[in-house]
């Protein structure tokens, strides 16, 4: 199995390199001039050239990309201008391998920025994941075992209605009404566990995570329902019943176990792609996680951060895929990863 993981990782590394190259290419193909932004509003053409050089955007993009890869492999020192580094050694920022880059706008390495943002998004994702999984699986089973009844229709219809609302609208509603106007919960502000303890961390995550969870809930209810229904129609469920097992055992042990496999796959991949959903949620709730970082970097044309995030997201997706595969082999004894 480890050989499989290593092999998949190697393929993943190649993929990520290609991904970064594409990001570089797209960035420089866009009409936005990053130097223009960094330079400020009263900036002459010459000043902009100086700024562009300072940002390292003046070199051909393949050269920049190669530099970036070098940073990934062995780390890099910033600023890139060697003369500047020699003149003011105390201003040099060392970005250790794997160096994701350096944001000139924030004067920080992308590693630091990601290190700040990742726990926030991860917290959000984990709490949301738990919410939608518990909700999705419970409601899904409820609907499945009452297939065709009012409960079934109610659950499926209800989740569809929620699904029909844009995530953005739900987020704004939760924030403006539940938190601000009605004051049911305090205004969510990300609190680290180290700062405010577990409860503060969790209670502050409640609304944003709920927003994110609702985005996925409907899908998981319907999926769970379908998977459980499918596995309920399997021969081995009939066998389980014929053995005289209690229907609770049949549904929650035998049927759910089989339905779990596709659910785990979906969950793993959704978890990896949460960044998209997190952008909206984080933006509304001002959570400075990866989603917000992405939007900010895009708005301010901060290539280093963008590439860093693309890399990170690519890595997360690849790792999630490997984890799902391995997990799959663990859940389903018939599957062997090799």
């Amino acid at each position, binding site marked *: 199995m480890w050989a499989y993981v290593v092999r998949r990782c190697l393929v993943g590394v190649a993929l990520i390199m290609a991904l970064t190259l594409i990001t570089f290419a797209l960035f420089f193909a866009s009409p936005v001039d990053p130097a223009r932004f960094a330079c400020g509003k009263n900036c002459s053409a010459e000043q902009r050239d100086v700024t562009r050089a300072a940002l390292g955007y003046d070199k051909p993009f393949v050269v920049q990309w190669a530099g970036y890869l070098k940073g990934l492999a062995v780390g890099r020192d910033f600023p890139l201008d060697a003369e500047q580094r020699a003149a003011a050694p105390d201003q040099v920022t060392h970005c250790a391998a794997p160096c994701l880059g350096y944001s000139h706008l924030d004067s920080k390495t992308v590693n630091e920025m990601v290190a700040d943002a990742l726990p926030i998004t991860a917290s959000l994702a984990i709490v949301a994941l738990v919410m939608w999984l518990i909700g999705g699986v419970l409601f899904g089973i409820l609907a499945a075992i009452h297939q065709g009844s009012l409960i079934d229709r109610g659950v499926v219809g209800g989740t569809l209605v929620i699904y029909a609302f844009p995530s953005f609208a739900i987020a704004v509603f939760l924030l403006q009404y539940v938190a601000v106007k009605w004051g049911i919960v305090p205004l969510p502000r990300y609190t680290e566990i180290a700062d405010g303890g577990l409860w503060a961390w969790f209670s502050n995550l409640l609304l944003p995570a709920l927003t994110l969870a609702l985005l996925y809930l409907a899908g998981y209810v319907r999926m769970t329902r379908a998977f459980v229904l499918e596995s309920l129609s399997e021969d*081995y469920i*009939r*066998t389980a*019943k014929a053995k*005289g097992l*209690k*229907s609770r055992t049949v549904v929650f042990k035998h049927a759910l176990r089989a339905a779990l496999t596709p659910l785990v796959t979906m969950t793993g991949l959704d978890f990896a792609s949460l960044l998209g959903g997190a952008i909206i949620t984080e933006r509304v709730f001002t959570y400075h996680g990866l989603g917000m970082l992405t939007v900010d970097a895009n708005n301010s044309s901060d290539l280093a951060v963008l590439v860093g995030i693309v890399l990170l997201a690519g890595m997360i997706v690849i790792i999630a895929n490997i984890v799902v595969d391995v997990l799959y082999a663990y859940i*389903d004894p018939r599957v062997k990863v090799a």
Partner: protein
Amino acid sequence: MTSPSNSFDDGPFLVVDDLSVRFPTSDGVVSAVSNLSYEVELGKTLGIVGESGSGKSVSSMAILGLHDRRSTELSGSIRVGGDEILGKGEEAMRALRGNDVAMIFQDALAALHPYFRIGKQLTEAYLAHHPSASKRDAEKRAIEMLDRVGIPQPDMRFKDYPHQFSGGMRQRVMIAMALINDPKLVIADEPTTALDVTVQAQILDLLQDLQREFNSAIILITHDLGVVAEFADDVMVMYGGRAVEKGPAKDILVRPEMPYTWGLLSSIPDVEADTNAKLIPIAGNPPSLLNLPSGCSFHPRCPHTGKVPGNLCSTELPELLPARSGPTHFKRCHLADPEAVYREEVLPEIAPDLLEEDR
């Protein structure tokens, strides 16, 4: 453990009487089984023969209470060990299932849970009806059963998953699971259909040995007349949800009196039959249970309707009446002298050699 056997003596262990099973669907009512009656004694085997859609598996699901209670209409009577089970609650049925009445399913790969070790699936079956037994007892019993059904190294294989077994071994596991609680009635639904012939022979041998050992009643549901011939004491041929012929296996296979049974016999080649004999297929397709043909359900496919006066075959359902060969042989056919038709028209076509032997 209380067994329903207190309340009955010597009579058949299972009595199915005038059982009808209907599923109302959006397209209409599916008459899966109509007015079906049969019985099985302990130590005896009843073979139920029919094609897909003949209703041969439906009655067994009703015996186990595995039909969908919300969408099934049942009428008639099913008595297991003298106890009427129709109308019993889910909990009472659950106590019966896998305990006094056990089932062996066709495709063991699909019928065993792919994600659980077979040891767990076996002990689970034992513990479901022995709530006071310890896990260790259950494991001991499971290994014992695996050993009994001829699985080598049962204590090692106990920890394996179904997919790690060969087809034959998997079917043995199914049998071990069905027999783990010493059932009095075993329903085997096409237990060897997915298996190769040599393995099929092994499994049938095993079933027979076990039946002798435990003196259980067996219902063998199959489409293979050869299997029935070698294994069953009695045979019931089903068509369109009804029994069209039933009786001792020998009577049914040697002196069949129902054209559908003739059709089945003539449409399968025999390893020893004359290769010059052309297979005589039954024309057409099996009927839809949603919309059964009027009269005798078989009449649209029956080549002998012309020998029945008028259009009796298409207007009136023939009753299940005693046949000529013996009082325990029943058939459902309007033909006045089916035996003569069989001897003169059917036998020469399918097995001329047999004809000569008989003469």
